[in-house]
């Protein structure tokens, strides 16, 4: 094991230590806590960048880095594995966390005692879920992530958040039980929980036990589908997103993608090349139904937070349908879509709160009366320097988010959809484009059209209808709230300009997760490092000698 291999542990260790160090600090120390949390996120960003360079730069054989926790050889101990896909997801997490934390600097991070602590633990859970390659360890990291998200969702305590939080917690507790049942079934049938070992054994399994493995895989996938909000398992999502405070909601967007990531990785590992057709079909049709549900939801709501939630559902549905369609060349385009849509919905959710500050005089009076009667732990409006041209900034950022969510040129949403269509219409030499592909194309186009209509309607009402006699006063925006939104939008612009290299990387990442043989060999053949102390056999021999 080379010294740099320990870097693989950093994305889990850093937030754990940082969060633990912040736990005893009280509310008065929020500046120190913010600085600590910011340093930790920057460290995560640096380590994610290095991991991307290491997996893609040939530092590790076949681009797969294996870290044997506590130096136990692979099927017995827990293996942490970084490949191109995991490194990319770590990078996305760090970038989003940076934006969310910066947004929370001025207001949301200052109320409540444990915002920063929980935020770090959430990051630890997400990073761990991307890195671990042991099913039960994945469960543990999911629980770390969920437990902190329960706390964060309630951040800025009010009745709406409590109500949403209670349903969110109940749904996720039930999902965790499904997770455990799935793991138990898979263990009963195969006798292992290490993903590489499972991938190897699953082909050699007796036909009689095959049903048990498939049942286990389906129940496990149900747990992930609840997280990624597939219809009809995703009714909790819009309420939760709309209720959460903006920085938390931005991180919740990423959490739906963790479920999708787990499905993508596990299904390609266990059932490569359509080995379990009915399961893939279920994902395809479920994803299609999710797109329809999300699009209908976007049209039916007129609050921005819920609209963003339905936008996230549409993007989850598209990804699930792409996984279910099961065409290898689609993975790269799907991953590009995942990155772009996560950034877009997160930016939109951060923007929602700023847009809500535009108040017509009548609405302001109503809001004041409502606030007087509501119990709420609400941060104060920002003081200090405001941002010039606030209305122009809000309107233009909103337009950029709308373009990305709807998939119109020139931003990354268009490139993603173009990539998806290109892959769907070129299924390989001599293969016809089948009905499923046409249905997917039609659905993605229709959902894009619906998003345009919904976002336009909201934009017109907010930015144009408030002129003239009912002219809205420009809201006060703090620089620290504007920067993260601009940062996320700039990332999306970079993704558009650099689409070529990014697609190249994603293509290699997609090919990597579809080659279980290489991966299995790398994980199971990594030998534990020789220790400085003699092993137990030597100790026994020494004792026997005199």
């Amino acid at each position, binding site marked *: 094991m080379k010294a740099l291999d320990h870097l693989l542990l950093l994305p889990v260790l850093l937030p754990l230590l940082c969060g633990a160090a912040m736990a005893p600090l009280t509310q008065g120390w929020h500046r120190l806590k913010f600085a600590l949390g910011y340093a930790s996120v920057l460290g995560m960003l640096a380590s994610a960048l290095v991991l991307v360079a290491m997996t893609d730069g040939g530092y590790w054989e076949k681009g797969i880095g294996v870290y044997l926790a506590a130096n136990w050889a692979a099927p017995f101990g827990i293996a942490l594995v970084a490949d191109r896909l995991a490194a990319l997801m770590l990078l996305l997490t760090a970038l989003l966390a940076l934006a969310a934390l910066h947004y929370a600097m001025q207001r949301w991070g200052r109320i409540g005692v444990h915002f920063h602590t929980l935020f770090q633990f959430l990051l630890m859970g997400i990073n761990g879920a991307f890195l671990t390659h042991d099913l*039960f360890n994945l469960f*543990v990291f999911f*629980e770390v992530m*969920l*437990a902190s998200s*329960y*706390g964060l969702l*309630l951040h800025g*305590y*009010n*009745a709406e958040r*409590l*109500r949403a*939080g*209670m*349903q969110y*917690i*109940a749904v996720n*507790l*039930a999902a*965790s*039980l499904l997770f*455990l*049942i799935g*793991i*138990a*079934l898979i*263990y*009963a049938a195969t006798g292992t*929980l290490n993903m590489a070992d499972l991938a190897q054994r699953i082909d050699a399994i007796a036909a009689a036990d095959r049903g048990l493995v498939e049942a286990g895989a389906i129940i496990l996938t149900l747990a992930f589908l609840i997280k990624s909000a597939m219809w009809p398992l995703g009714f909790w999502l819009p309420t939760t997103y709309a209720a959460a405070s903006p920085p938390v909601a931005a991180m919740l967007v990423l959490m739906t993608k963790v479920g999708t990531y787990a499905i993508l990785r596990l299904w390609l590992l266990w059932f490569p090349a359509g080995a379990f057709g009915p399961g893939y079909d279920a994902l395809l049709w479920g994803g299609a139904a999710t797109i329809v549900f999300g699009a209908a939801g976007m049209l039916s709501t007129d609050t921005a937070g819920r609209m963003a939630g339905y936008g996230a559902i549409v993007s989850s549905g598209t990804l699930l349908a792409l996984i279910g369609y099961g065409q290898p060349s689609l993975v790269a385009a799907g991953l590009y879509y995942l990155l772009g849509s996560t950034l877009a919905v997160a930016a939109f959710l951060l923007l929602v709160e700023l847009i809500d500050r535009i108040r017509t005089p009548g609405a302001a009076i109503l809001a004041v009366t409502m606030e007087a009667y509501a*119990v709420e732990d609400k941060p104060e409006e920002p003081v200090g320097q405001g941002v010039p041209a606030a209305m122009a900034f809000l309107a233009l950022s909103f337009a950029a988010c709308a373009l990305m969510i709807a998939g119109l040129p020139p931003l990354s949403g268009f490139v993603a959809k173009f990539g998806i269509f290109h892959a769907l219409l070129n299924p390989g030499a001599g293969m016809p484009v089948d009905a499923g592909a046409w249905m997917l194309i039609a659905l993605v186009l229709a959902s894009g059209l619906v998003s345009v209509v919904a976002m336009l309607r909201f934009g017109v009402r907010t930015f144009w209808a408030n002129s003239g006699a009912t002219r809205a006063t420009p809201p006060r925006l703090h620089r620290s709230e504007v920067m993260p939104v601009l940062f996320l939008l700039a990332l999306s612009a970079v993704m558009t300009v650099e689409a070529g290299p990014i697609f190249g990387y994603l293509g290699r990442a997609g090919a990597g997760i579809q080659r279980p043989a290489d991966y299995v060999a790398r994980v199971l053949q990594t030998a534990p490092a020789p220790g400085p102390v003699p092993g*137990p*056999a030597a100790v*026994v021999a020494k004792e026997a000698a005199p």
Partner: protein
Amino acid sequence: MDIVLSLAIGIVFAAGIWLVLRPRSFQVLAGLMLMSYAVNLFIFAMGRLRVDHPPLLTEAAARGKPVDPATLAAMADPLPQALVLTAIVIGFATTALYLVVMIGSRGLTATDHVDGREPDQ
């Protein structure tokens, strides 16, 4: 024994599902707890049910000497038991958290309905 245990798990889980679908948050909590008991038993049973087989290696095996296959056959699988322990701890912690949120919701909304308001309001 297999039939008795599977019946017990099934009945407890079914009762849990029924309670989770009830409108009062305390019923939901009790349902979640029952379901987690059933799931814990289920994980335990997935290590195969065997009587008089402790999950322990003999002293010789622990000292690195070659293990007699007969000793291994007389040993229960320890892994599901370790998994159950972890699952119990995590389930306990998250259920306690749900309880806290439930009490908070009861205090703030003055109702114990899961929607935070009575259906006729």
